[in-house]
């Protein structure tokens, strides 16, 4: 059953540019795929390791700023700037992890929020490097094997490819025995410790992996927009990513993808009628937390069970 659904979803995704016709919806689909990469990477930490982070947009910013700066100011190629961007962001995530994992729970959340704000402050105030409020522009999309990614459909397929690779890697990771130990540190840290697992190290690895996949999303983000500014690192953006995870269903593979699609669609539809996206984001946040705390995937399962019971 799941396999059939999966195949149908894949065919739909592949055929999407032909169904939608215009580039507006294809671009929206690309944005959803990129948002889903962020949500899936954050889900590793929030859903599987049980550590709620409010600084995920920082990785977007790090990877995007580092690679853009290298491309614009040092003449790096697309490949090398992307690689340096991803690797250095992962390394910085590793260092952040050393500090942030001194705590868990609410304190962890506060520390990651502070980290996110440090990076935002850097992007905003270190004008010589980052261009301050103006950000960095003048970037181009790569053209691998001569395919022009400046074209909306081509970029969509590129984003789909990267999305599938990230999805597959994360699926393999969380379904592996190691993935089970990550979940173990969430549910029973003391017992895991007693069983001889190094809880801290498992958490640190997950934290760093979250940064690695987030960095991939950051590169995709900057390719899509060809522009990066401090606004992309704001707390609201980190919160948006967290909302995708929670709304869809933390700790499930599909939840963050569904959450990303919902949040991006809502944002796009809403912005046609009102200017106050952030107000809506806040209200949706409160609503989800109060009424669908497990997310839509879990809510759907509960609903299904409820139907089965009443039958």
């Amino acid at each position, binding site marked *: 059953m799941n396999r059939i659904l999966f195949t149908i979803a894949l065919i739909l995704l592949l055929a999407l540019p032909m169904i939608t016709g215009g580039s507006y919806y294809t671009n929206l689909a690309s944005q959803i795929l990129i948002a889903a990469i962020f949500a899936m990477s954050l889900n590793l930490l929030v859903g599987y390791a049980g550590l709620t982070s409010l600084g995920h947009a920082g990785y977007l910013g790090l990877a995007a700023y580092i690679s853009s700066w290298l491309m614009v100011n040092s003449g790096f190629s697309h490949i090398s700037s992307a690689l340096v961007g991803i690797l250095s962001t992962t390394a910085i995530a590793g260092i952040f992890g050393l500090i942030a994992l001194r705590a868990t729970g609410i304190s962890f959340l506060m520390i990651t929020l502070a980290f996110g704000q440090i990076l935002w402050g850097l992007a905003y105030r270190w004008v010589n490097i980052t261009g301050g409020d103006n950000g960095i522009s003048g970037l181009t999309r790569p053209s691998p094997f001569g395919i022009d990614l400046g074209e909306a459909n081509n970029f969509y397929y590129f984003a789909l490819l990267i999305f599938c690779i990230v999805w597959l890697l994360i699926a393999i990771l969380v379904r592996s025995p190691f993935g089970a130990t990550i979940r173990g540190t969430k549910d029973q840290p003391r017992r895991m410790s007693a069983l001889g697992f190094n809880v801290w190290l498992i958490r640190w690895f997950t934290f760093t992996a979250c940064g690695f996949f987030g960095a991939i999303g950051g590169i995709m983000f900057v390719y899509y927009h060809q522009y990066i500014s401090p606004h992309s690192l704001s707390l609201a953006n980190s919160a948006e990513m967290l909302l995708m995870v929670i709304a869809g269903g933390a700790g499930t593979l599909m939840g963050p993808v569904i959450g990303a699609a919902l949040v991006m669609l809502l944002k796009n539809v809403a912005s046609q009628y009102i200017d106050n996206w952030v107000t809506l984001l806040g209200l*949706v946040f409160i609503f989800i937390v109060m009424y669908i705390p497990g997310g839509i995937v879990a809510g759907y399962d509960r609903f299904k069970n409820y139907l089965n019971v009443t039958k």
Partner: protein
Amino acid sequence: MSFWLIQSLNSLALGGVLFTLAAGFSLIFGLMRIANLSHGAYFMLGAYVGLSVVEAGHSFFLALLAAGVAIGLLGLVVERFILRRLAGNSLSQVLATLGVAFVIADGSLWFWGGDPRLVSAPSFLAGGIKIIGQTFPLYRVALVVFSIVVAIGLWLLLDKTKLGVMIRASVDDRQMAQGIGVPATKLFSIVFCLGSALAGIGGIAAAPILSVYPGLDADMLPLALVVVILGGLGSLLGAFVGSFLIGFIYSFGQALFPDLAYIILFLPMLIILAVRPRGLFGKISA
């Protein structure tokens, strides 16, 4: 010499402002075990409410009062209708406060516009004061005095009243306190209301030196986080010492290394987390 003196006063004034913000944040955390992420937004909203009162031609004191009452009531509503329904699930509560913060921030932008607004200090505090041959802006001195008065008031409340005893007992051991009949729900309401009101008052009190602008909330919230992580969650003394420490680090950082002031600000937090995760005066381990 005068650079150091003036900067020191600026540091003290900023520290005083931070204390009105961080004291409530820390008390709320200590009692309810939640990080109130709308605290920065309360601070900004307090400043805007005060601004409107002043612009309507009323006195600065009325503005202080109005900000305190308005934000205190708002806190009461948030506690009663959102946080209490999520009791027992602190992560959901924290995320809900974040949602509230976004609604307030965006609503203020819509209502008061995007331009920075300056509130002038009350006229009798507008000039300078001469201390040992050096002229200091009087309002900043008044701000320091005001924060010390607030600190003493809070200390008296916590240390000398029955309410304070109940709060301290609940901070130290909530289950035990509830077991001997301390009304936890009522305490939550009181402390959340009080903390919010303090943040609102802090906002308008700080407006003559910081001005009011969209994004003030996002500037202040991390400062409050750093102060309480540094000083220790749930400790009034920690919030006091942490506020003035951060006040000095931020003011001097901004004067000496304007590009990197933001980074310098977070360094002490990182050191504290590495060496003593519960903070300087914290009893609750992180």
